[in-house]
């Protein structure tokens, strides 16, 4: 048997391939992104980036209509965006196997909440698998494809950060070739007019009964006999933590967690003296078990934390009271992530801070502009939220009888986030006579999640040219008249334009444009660096406020620039009022010149 060490995400992609998967698409989102990236290696799969989670599910559903085995992957909050088609897809069912993969993020390593997406399965009546390691992630994905067709339902695969981003050994199998059947209309099944939907709801309820029966005998739900004094019910990664702490206990291991196997649960309860429910997040299993009146003591969330991630130490302490003996350390400086040296977002936030603007923010690298010393973003809610949030503040301020322009309202949103869900609130603002200024930070890539191509970059997931969306034309197409594309590194112009537009009594959009400094065509070059002259430096602190990781303060409070980190973007040179900073080699390549070349390349593509 061929073995490999795969991450949960790679294993899901592998399982989809082995199971005869045809089409996969997704919007990138940590911790789900690598599922689609990993699909690229399989030529039989058509894999592509979607503009958002809703469109990705709609497209996958359409592919399923035509008989293609399809998959969408998203982070937990992505399923909120895709919830509308998700609920409808449950009624419609799956002609070609249809998998929805949700990767939740307990501990919020890279997310704005820690919602528990298991409730979506229950809520939409869609069966759900939860792997506990990479091998199971592969197997469950593979098997869910044919099960989805057999039961005529989309199938939810729920992962978490520690499943998606943990690597374990996987036994590899071969691909099963499945033919794409082709599209045949089925009006009563797929057109959810009330007259059809009423019948479909009945179908869903009948299907649920069949799925319950299936869950009872499914290989992934089983009792692992052991010490009868402790019975542990666990799902996903929590199973592994619990198994580590209580290897001798009796376990009810559940890989299918909706619908749940009632008879199996009762059998398990009859074998043990008390039940520990070990689950991260909400009391999803616990609530179900308690409602079953099993006649056995159940211990769950009164001991197991509701917030954050679990690990074996936390599970042990919660259930045995055993406290770990560990080294306590004094308070040390934290190491927050920061905008990169040469990041084109830095000057924009620097200017917004100097203008004392009120900034609503959004999701992306640029959310880091909220952290000190830039501290130039008040809010960050969800994908695309910035535009509507700023406009709402404008409305409330105007309703107080005040001129909202005095608030200097600015919504800041990245290019990829704007395509995702920033376009519709801008239409709203335009249509309802709003005047809020929107700044689109256009670095022509989806940077935060690791540089995925997007509609503005003109390249697809498989690396072939796609059509490019022209951001400025898109905004002008809505009807916004005041649209200005400004070089993010041209701080003088940028400051003038922002200051002018936040005082304008009409809506305006400023596109601050510069390629991400980590783009491959930027990163592979060798750059000169900047030097700060300690004799000239007056310790005025202005360049420190850029929050550039290459700039630090010496013991005698002078600027020092780390030549290993600096890429010579010249932004600190522009900021310095006494010309104390200069390039080591003014004739050599630097990030500013390179960015202009790449921008030139982009402009050429536009023509």
């Amino acid at each position, binding site marked *: 048997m061929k073995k490999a060490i795969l991450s949960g995400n790679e294993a899901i992609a592998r399982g989809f391939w082995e199971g005869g998967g045809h089409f996969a698409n997704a919007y990138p989102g940590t911790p789900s992104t690598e599922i689609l990236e990993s699909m690229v290696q399989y030529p039989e799969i058509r894999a592509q980036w979607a503009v958002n989670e809703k469109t990705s599910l709609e497209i996958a559903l359409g592919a399923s209509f035509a008989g293609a085995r399809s998959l969408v992957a998203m982070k937990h909050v992505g399923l909120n965006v895709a919830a509308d088609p998700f609920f409808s897809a449950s009624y419609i069912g799956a002609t070609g196997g249809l998998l929805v993969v949700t990767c939740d993020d307990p501990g919020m390593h890279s997310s704005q909440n820690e919602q528990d997406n298991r409730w979506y399965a229950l809520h939409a009546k869609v069966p759900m698998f939860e792997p506990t*390691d990479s091998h199971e992630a592969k197997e469950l994905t593979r098997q869910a494809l044919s099960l989805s067709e057999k039961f005529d339902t989309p199938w939810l695969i729920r992962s978490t*950060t520690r499943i998606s981003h943990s690597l374990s050994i996987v036994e590899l199998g071969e691909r099963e070739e499945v033919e794409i059947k082709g599209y045949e209309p089925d009006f009563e099944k797929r057109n959810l007019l009330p007259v059809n939907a009423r019948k479909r709801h009945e179908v869903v309820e009948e299907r649920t009964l069949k799925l319950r029966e299936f869950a009872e005998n499914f290989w992934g739900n089983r009792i692992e006999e052991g010490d009868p004094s402790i019975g542990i019910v666990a799902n996903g990664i929590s199973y592994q933590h619990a198994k580590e702490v209580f290897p001798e206990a009796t376990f009810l291991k559940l890989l299918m967690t909706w619908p749940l196997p009632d008879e199996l649960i009762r059998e398990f309860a009859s074998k043990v003296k008390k039940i520990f429910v070990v689950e991260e997040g909400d009391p999803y299993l616990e609530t179900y078990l308690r409602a079953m009146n099993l006649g056995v003591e159940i211990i769950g969330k009164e001991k197991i934390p509701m917030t954050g991630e679990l690990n074996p130490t936390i599970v042990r302490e919660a259930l045995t009271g055993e406290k770990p003996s560990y080294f306590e350390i004094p308070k040390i400086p934290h190491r927050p992530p920061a905008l990169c040296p040469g990041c084109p977002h830095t000057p924009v936030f620097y200017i917004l801070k100097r203008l004392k603007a009120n900034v609503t923010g959004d999701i992306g690298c640029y959310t880091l502009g909220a952290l000190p010393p830039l501290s130039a973003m008040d809010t960050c809610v969800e994908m695309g939220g910035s535009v509507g949030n700023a406009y709402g503040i404008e409305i409330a301020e105007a309703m107080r009888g005040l001129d909202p322009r005095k608030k200097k309202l600015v919504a800041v949103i990245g290019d990829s986030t704007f395509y995702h869900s920033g376009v519709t609130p801008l239409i709203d603002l335009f249509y309802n006579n709003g005047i809020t200024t929107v700044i689109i930070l256009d670095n022509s890539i989806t940077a935060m999640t690791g540089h995925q191509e997007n509609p503005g970059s003109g390249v697809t997931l498989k690396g072939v040219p796609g059509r490019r969306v022209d951001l400025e034309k898109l905004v002008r197409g809505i009807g916004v008249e005041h649209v200005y594309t400004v070089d993010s590194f041209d701080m003088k112009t940028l400051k003038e334009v922002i200051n002018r537009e936040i005082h304008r009594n009409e809506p305006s959009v400023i596109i601050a444009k510069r390629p991400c400094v980590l783009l491959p065509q930027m990163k592979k070059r060798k750059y000169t660096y900047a030097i700060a002259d300690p004799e000239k430096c007056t310790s005025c602190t202005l360049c420190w406020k850029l929050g550039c990781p290459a700039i630090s303060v010496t013991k005698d409070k002078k600027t020092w620039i780390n030549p290993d980190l600096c890429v010579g973007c010249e932004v600190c040179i522009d900021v310095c009022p006494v010309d104390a900073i200069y390039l080591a080699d003014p004739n050599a390549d630097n990030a500013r010149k390179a960015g202009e070349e790449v921008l030139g390349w982009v402009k050429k593509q536009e023509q």
Partner: protein
Amino acid sequence: MGKETRTVIVAGVGGQGILLASNLLSEAAMEAGYDVKKSEIHGMSQRGGDVISTVRFGEKVYSPIVGLAGADVILAFEKLEAMRNLPYLKKDGTVIVNDYRIDPLPVASGYMDYPEGIIEYLRERVKTISLDARQLAEKAGNIKTMNVVMLGVLSKSLDIPEEIWLRVIERRVPKKAIEANKVAFRLGREVAENAEL
């Protein structure tokens, strides 16, 4: 082959080659016949934040991570990160620390001070092997081999044959860097051989 699961936390700063190092360790352990699990956090940490990767191997590994006092070894590519992860080390564990400093933003922008005497702090509490991996990587002919120098040090205390390590390195690093990485690995291993614990 030891039955007990061994846990190594590889810690450092984004961009230091932590994930490649933990990949090499995982593959070497798998090739030596162990069950292996590895866990790491992507996302925000890519932007210069702290990064940790946990590798666990043994006859049968359940959880891919550990909590407080759960690791046998902390392999730190930067010294402040060694200190940060000390609570996750077993009291009788070992720290292998690169005596190398990267200022985090609060230090760089003058809000906080970088702690003095980290290596001494560690030595007073726990078995500590400290080295200048950057210098050894330079000696090996490629500054980017710092992570493999660190693996060389680690390798001495793990039950994985040297030839497996070298095989995995050959397979996983870019062709033109294979020799430098092999030298780097041996330089690291020498450090561990000469270390007095």
